[in-house]
């Protein structure tokens, strides 16, 4: 019988990512990791991490925060590394050398997922390895000091696309990796946020119950990079969801479903103004830039709702 995903039952479970790691105070990554491992509490798991904040801060010298088997190989190859682990598991299981039902989870930042690690991720998904790949998306290369990534949103101020007199932060739009992963035709793809923890944990649980490749993109605020207060991670995550900057949805066997619809869709300024990385957008004369961001969000949100509706009407007609 699976452990119910409620606070009372989960609080009885052992945390498999310990405190005492060296991530920054207020970082959302360890919160996300704890949620993932709690959702996976009924299975033995093996975790692979890409090089990044989480990796360098969680296993230093003889100290490790991981109470589960964990492997770090390099920056761009968490998916390929875990492919190897999972394949060896299948090989040894076939030979009768292992009888446990083990789950495999890769956890990497957006650099190791959207950008340098994309080939490795795409390959692993196409090869249909039985693994869950989680991207903890903090929207820039935070480990090396807040450089822009393929996940950095338009007009965010980073150290390699600083907001200046001529260029107002990152000029390009972010790569929509969740959709790209869904286009791989894998059984389960989702977007989640730690502010909506039951939704996140349900998605992780659901993903782990499905055989084959799964991908979940988790919104993970970084107070250092986003210039927010150390206790703002969950607040900012909630604003991202409520403004539809980060919609919560899943694509299960090709069927899109929005898992949270805000009663009232908040304007994106509420999300932007809470963060120093968008501070320059509030200077006089920059109103157009915020309007542009709002327009992008609206367009994407409407498109997502239409996509959901398309599948809903199909199901009704059947």
């Amino acid at each position: 019988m699976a452990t119910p995903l409620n606070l009372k039952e989960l609080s009885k479970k052992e945390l498999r990512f310990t405190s005492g790691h060296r991530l920054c105070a207020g970082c959302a990554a360890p919160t996300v990791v704890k949620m993932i491992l709690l959702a996976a509490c009924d299975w033995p798991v093996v975790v692979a991490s890409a090089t990044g904040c989480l990796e360098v801060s969680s296993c230093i010298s003889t100290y490790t925060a991981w109470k589960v088997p964990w492997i770090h190989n390099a920056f761009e190859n968490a998916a390929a590394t875990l492919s190897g682990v999972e394949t060896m598991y299948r090989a040894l299981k076939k030979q009768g050398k292992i009888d446990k039902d083990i789950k495999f989870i890769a956890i990497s930042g957006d650099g190791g997922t959207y950008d340098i690690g994309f080939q490795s991720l795409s390959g692993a998904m196409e090869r249909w390895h039985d693994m869950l790949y989680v991207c903890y998306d903090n929207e820039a290369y935070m480990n090396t000091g807040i450089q822009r990534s393929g996940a950095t949103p338009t007009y965010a101020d980073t150290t390699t696309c600083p907001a200046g007199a001529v260029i107002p932060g990152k000029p390009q739009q972010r790569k929509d990796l969740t959709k790209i992963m869904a286009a791989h035709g894998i059984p389960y793809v989702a977007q989640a946020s730690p502010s909506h923890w039951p939704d996140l944990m349900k998605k992780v649980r659901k993903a782990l119950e499905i055989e084959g490749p799964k991908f979940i993109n988790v919104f993970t605020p970084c107070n250092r990079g986003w210039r927010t207060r150390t206790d703002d991670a969950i607040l900012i995550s909630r604003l991202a969801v409520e403004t539809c900057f980060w919609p919560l949805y899943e694509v299960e066997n090709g069927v899109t479903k929005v898992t949270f619809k805000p009663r009232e869709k908040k304007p994106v300024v509420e999300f932007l103004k809470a963060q120093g990385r968008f501070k320059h957008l509030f200077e006089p004369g920059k109103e157009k830039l915020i309007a542009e961001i709002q327009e992008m969000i609206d367009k994407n949100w409407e498109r997502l709702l239409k996509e959901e509706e398309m599948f809903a009407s199909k199901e009704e007609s059947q």
Partner: protein
Amino acid sequence: MTKVVAVTGNEAVANAFRQIEPDVCAAYPITPQTELMQRFAAFVSNGQVKTEMILVESEHSAMSACVGAAAAGGRVATATSSQGLALMWEILFIASGLRLPIVMPVVNRALSAPINIHCDHSDAMGARDSGWIQLWSENAQEAYDNTIQAFRIAEHMDIRLPVMVCYDGFIISHSIERIEYLDDEVVKKFVGEYKPLYPLLDVDNPKSYGPLILTDLYHEVRKAHSEVYKKVPKVVVDVAKEFKKISGRSYGLFESYRLDDAEIGIVILNSAAGTTKDVIDEYRERGIKVGLLKPRLFRPFPYEEVGNALKNLKAVCVLDRADAFGGSFGPLYLDIAASLCNFKEKPVLINRIYGLGGRDYMPEHAQGVIDELIEIAKTGKVKVLKEYIGVRE
């Protein structure tokens, strides 16, 4: 009962893989390695082995998957050539740093640019400092024998290090030769059951692989790592002794050919050693005391043993099938020179670069080198220290 066959080098090594039956094999095709993996994939498809193949999207992922699979706790193999090995470069260091006993035949091929699919040693030489043990092979028989021994060496509990088995692209990989295969059961017994060490899949005893080590300990970790390499030559020799019992074929750290009473000598790797031996025989018939040293264990380099084997010669030519651009001499020359530099009496050394990008190494090239060595031994004078031979004018 051994079985004598006529096969290509790649076929011989694929057959060694079949007999050894690694648990996981991750690979990406690249000429001239492709034929090896195709043949092995056919064994998998036909159910002749229980190996799980991971047909990855790049060599970088091939080596990454091998690291994951080996850390998980089973026997792992891959193979590559040239650009593929170059693409793996980053992960080669991680495989050796994590002490993972992965075995990888490297079918030697030139590096780009210009692109060239034929043999030279620039690929393996580029990876020589990655912490992988390197065994080099003169012919298909040696490639087969070395592959079998490589698993025993890699998995030895004293070292647990990855091993490359180098053999020449096309010259060996695609030429048909006479090979003596060992029986499947003999090979299986020789290689034995895989013994996992700290497997990730032991979920009841979690281990963390690949930690961050900062300035407080990195230096010490590297020193400890370097100590392990001192144990490698003994393991290589011990495994060779056992291999002789099942095959009748002898292997050491290097091969000495008519070297004991030699006055002049040639040092050369892989297939070109065969041609050189024939030429040496001709010169010996004429009473010229010439010999050859063919390194087998190139990394870690057994410099003491090599130095002792060469110190009494008058003149030695090191033939390199790779150059070190912007450096002084070819990579093999540097190791030979370093092996000899502390002896009071030592031979005069010259370096010749040959056979790049598959250029034929002909008997007349060996003759030219020996003639030059005869002259150097007589006069003590060297005209050119380093030079390309076999260049079209």
